[in-house]
C-alpha cells in the first residue's frame, strides 16, 4: 500500500535576482525590485512530499526523524540564514524560487529511501509558491 508523507520546514535567506547574461537595464526590467544590488530576504517555507510503500510494521512511509536529519544536514544547514547567491549552486544559476525548489529537490533526492521525493514546494511569501516534481515529471509534462 502506497501513501505519501509531507512535512514543512522554515528557513530565512537573502538573495538577489540578477544574471550576467543581461545588461544592468535588462536586469532591472526583468527582475524589478528583486534586482536591488544589496539583495533582500524571505522567510521561506519548504514543503516536502515523500511517497512510497507504508511499512507494515511501523505504519510509516518515511521516518520523520530521519527526514528531519536529512533536511537539516543537506538543506537547512546550507541555506538557512545564508545568502543564496554565494552558494556554489547559484554562482551560475539565478536563485529564483523556481531554481531553489530544484536545488532542494536535487540535494534531497535519494535520501528518503525507500520513499521517493514526489515534490518540493517552496513558499517565498504567503502569496507566492513554486513546486518541482523532478526531471521525470518535467519530461512527461513536456511530452504531453
Amino acid at each position, binding site marked *: *500500500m*502506497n*501513501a*505519501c*508523507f*509531507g*512535512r*514543512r*520546514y522554515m528557513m530565512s535567506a537573502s538573495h538577489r535576482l540578477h544574471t550576467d547574461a543581461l545588461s544592468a537595464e535588462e536586469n532591472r526590467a526583468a527582475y524589478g525590485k528583486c534586482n536591488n544590488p544589496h539583495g533582500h530576504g524571505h522567510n521561506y517555507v519548504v514543503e516536502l*512530499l515523500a511517497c512510497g510503500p*507504508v511499512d507494515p*510494521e*511501523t*505504519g*510509516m*512511509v518515511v*521516518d*520523520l*526523524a530521519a527526514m528531519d536529519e536529512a533536511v537539516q544536514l543537506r538543506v537547512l544547514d546550507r541555506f538557512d540564514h545564508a545568502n543564496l547567491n554565494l552558494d556554489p549552486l547559484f554562482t551560475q544559476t539565478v536563485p529564483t524560487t523556481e531554481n531553489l525548489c530544484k536545488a532542494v529537490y536535487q540535494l534531497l533526492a535519494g535520501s528518503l529511501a525507500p520513499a521517493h521525493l514526489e515534490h518540493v514546494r517552496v513558499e517565498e511569501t504567503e502569496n507566492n509558491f513554486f513546486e518541482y516534481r523532478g526531471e521525470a515529471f518535467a519530461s512527461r509534462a513536456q511530452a504531453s
Partner: protein
Amino acid sequence: MVFLTRRATFSASHYYWNEAWPAEKNADVFGRCANRNGHGHNYTLEVTVAGRPDPVTGFVVDLKWLKDVIEHQVLSAYDHHHLNLEVPEFAAKVPTTENIAIAIWGRLEPAVTAAGGARLDRVRVYETPEIFAEFRGGA
C-alpha cells in the same frame, strides 16, 4: 475534470505501538509517540473529489452532501475518540498519519463511488500544520 476539496477537523488521541515488538524497540522507533497513556492532535482532513460539473447545477458534488458523508463516515467515529482503542481499523494497525489517510479513504470511497458523478481523488490528513499524509487510492 474539476477537483473539489472539502476541509473538516477532528480531535483525537492515539499512541504508536507495535504489539509484535518489545517495549524497548517501540520506544526506540516511535519515541515520545510510544507513550502508552496516549497523546492527541487537532487533525485537519482534506477530501478531494474529481468530476465534471453537472450542466444544470454546476456542482461536481453537492458540498452539503459531502459534508454529511464526512460527518457520518469519519467524524462520528474519529472526533473526540481514542483511535487505538475505539476505531476498529487501528485495533491491529498503528494509527500513523499515513494509516489514518488510508483508513479514511476506505471509509469514504464506497459512498462517493456509490453516489456516481464524481470519484474520490485524494485524502490528505494534517496531524499538525507542519505534518501531513496523503493517500490517492490504489495498492
